[in-house]
């Protein structure tokens, strides 16, 4: 059995993805605080519930297991300070650390509200096109009444800080409703003295100067998809209007970046881009990074494709094994790190930033996809054009394929009804990692998360079975890759620089809109 963590290098062949104890190790558990461990060969990572961690040389780990690290040793001090020695715990400090790490667990109600203002789209993306409809199908546009009720529902949820994210389809195809929601939500935020963030996800093919001006004036941050060089992007995301969709994206990104550079107020609204990794991307990591660099983007988000909704149906054409993604991730991250080390670029990778915010800073980065209980309902909700509410946007995509299981109500229901819905409760109960046999013991549990919709689609169980879950395999592999680089002084220095520069402005807790009320709790 390979006892060491294998990172992105391939499959795990042991009985579990967890690593085993060093062979013949003596153990004396009496004085040990609760911990999870992961064997990396020469060294071992230990972590605990409070998000504290330590990398131990193999022989120190064996001494620790046998109760052989004695008071007076520097190592004993370090382990005690981090809550690994049972009779030397500072409960107040550990509790504070737990709260900082898991702040989302103590804030009531969802913060991220994804509003699908239309299902229409003018692109035919290979991983999504059946989740949207033809541009002529105006019957899938959200109407004014539904838009108003949607905003009313959002403002009846209790989180003091709200983020409304416009999605589609292509939201610019129903522009009057986008405008209405922006202005109506801002009026309500003012009246209720609540913090409001607004974000628009669009493909830029329908952007105009007037629309851009409105978005800037109202502090709406703009996000797009950019999968890579033109041939790759256009193969993934064909444009029905003819011509290259990538050229349009690049052109608008350049324009908005130029605007942002000359204006401090606009700076926080620099466009961000999401990259989806398909099979076509796997050999092209550095090229994709170079494109983002050339555009002056501060970050790239190397996102794996999820086999959810339509993507599941075409997985055979565009999907891949999670080990292939991990290889891609590792090679591309190393390229990015090399650019940073050599001073050629300061570009950051967002998966790494999210996880490093948890690991190094001990803070919650506000990222929905990596928390437990899952972000579904407790952290986010998705609103379909017809007013139906889903536990997440992925849940809505499952509905579009004919399975309404993740529908938890409509905008005419009360927040309490949605929260009490059996599906909402099931998603929360099933996504507690303490009840997952493998996760409960995993060294990455304090920083990991759960994905009920993914596991429903892949394994027909909202709880999932982690030993065979590609979701677990992907995340465990990314953790392994990052932890190894955290141990290297050169790459650790790059990571520290990223954390210093990055303001952790995710969509869910991003920049504050000028002139908008900000509660202390949210600032």
């Amino acid at each position, binding site marked *: 059995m390979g006892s060491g963590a294998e990172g992105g290098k391939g499959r795990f062949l042991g009985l579990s993805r967890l690593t085993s*104890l060093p062979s013949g190790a003596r153990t004396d558990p009496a004085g040990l605080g609760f911990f999870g461990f992961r064997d990396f060969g020469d060294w071992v990572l230990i972590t605990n519930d409070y998000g504290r961690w330590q990398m131990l040389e193999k022989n120190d780990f064996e001494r620790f297991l046998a109760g052989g690290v004695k008071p007076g040793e520097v190592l004993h001090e370090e382990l005690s300070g981090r809550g690994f020695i*049972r009779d030397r*715990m500072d409960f107040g400090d550990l509790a504070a650390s737990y709260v900082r790490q898991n702040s989302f667990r103590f804030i009531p109600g969802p913060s991220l509200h994804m509003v699908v203002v239309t299902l229409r789209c*003018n692109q035919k993306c290979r991983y999504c096109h059946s989740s949207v409809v033809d541009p002529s199908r105006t019957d899938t546009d959200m109407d004014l009444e539904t838009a108003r009720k949607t905003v009313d529902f959002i*403002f009846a949820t209790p989180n003091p800080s709200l983020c409304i994210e416009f999605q589609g389809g292509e939201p610019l*195809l129903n522009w009057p409703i986008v405008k*209405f929601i922006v202005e109506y939500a801002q009026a*309500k935020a003012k009246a209720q003295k609540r913090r409001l963030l607004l974000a628009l996800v669009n493909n830029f093919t*329908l952007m105009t100067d007037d629309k851009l001006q409105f978005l800037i004036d109202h502090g709406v941050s703009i996000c797009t998809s950019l999968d890579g060089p033109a041939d790759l992007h256009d193969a993934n995301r064909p444009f029905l209007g003819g011509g290259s969709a990538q050229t349009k994206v690049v052109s608008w990104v350049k324009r908005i970046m130029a605007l942002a550079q000359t204006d401090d107020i606009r700076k926080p609204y620099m466009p961000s881009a999401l990259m989806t990794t398909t099979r076509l991307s796997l050999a092209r990591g550095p090229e994709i990074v170079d494109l983002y660099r050339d555009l002056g983007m501060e970050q790239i988000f190397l996102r794996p494709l999820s086999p959810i909704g339509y993507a599941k149906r075409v997985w055979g054409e565009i999907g891949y094994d999670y080990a292939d993604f991990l290889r891609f991730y590792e090679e591309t991250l190393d390229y990015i790190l090399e650019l940073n080390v050599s001073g050629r670029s300061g570009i950051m990778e967002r998966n790494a930033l999210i996880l490093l915010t948890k690991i190094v800073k001990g803070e919650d980065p506000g990222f929905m996809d990596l928390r437990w209980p899952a972000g579904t309902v407790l952290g986010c909700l998705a609103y379909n054009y017809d007013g139906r509410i889903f536990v997440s946007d992925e849940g809505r995509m499952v509905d579009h394929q004919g399975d309404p299981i993740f529908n938890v109500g409509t905008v005419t229901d009360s927040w309490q009804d949605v929260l009490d819905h059996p599906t909402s409760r099931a998603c929360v109960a099933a996504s507690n990692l303490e009840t997952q046999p493998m996760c409960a*013991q995993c060294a990455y549990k304090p920083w990991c998360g759960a994905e009920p919709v993914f596991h429903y689609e892949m394994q027909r169980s909202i709880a999932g079975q982690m030993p065979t879950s590609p979701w677990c395999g992907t995340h465990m592999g990314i953790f392994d890759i990052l932890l190894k680089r955290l141990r290297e002084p050169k790459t650790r220095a790059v990571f520290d620089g990223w954390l210093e520069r990055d303001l952790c402005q995710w969509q869910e807790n991003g920049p504050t809109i000028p002139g908008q009320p900000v509660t202390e709790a949210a600032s």
Partner: protein
Amino acid sequence: MDRAYALVSGDKAKVLTVTLRPKGARGADDLAALKRDFEAELAAQRLRWAVARNNRTVREYVVENALALAKEFSERAAPGAAAPAAEQLTADQRSEIERLIAEVETEISAMNAQAKGPDPKASALSWEAAQKAEKDGSSA
């Protein structure tokens, strides 16, 4: 991980016997490797179980502390944040919303009244042509 069928027999209070039947493996080496892996996993589980049992009250106590701390923190930071403030739109805000609704209604009916509708048309046009059409429309 999905390598063997396991049969557990015996008396839980006394001795349990675990019989493993490999799913794919054949030779004696594979069987020996499976046995080794199982024993290593058993040793790790024994330790994890003991550590979990010894620390149960400590972990519960820290989480209780965390709950109290978080409550205190959120009440200090945003009193009453648990319930959204009752919405009190001023007369000005109300009339602003009415104006907004009227404006959007006009925009939508104008959009729907057009035979082809601006959106399908825009999506079929090239980006540059769509821009020009939008500009002409807005300056008309």
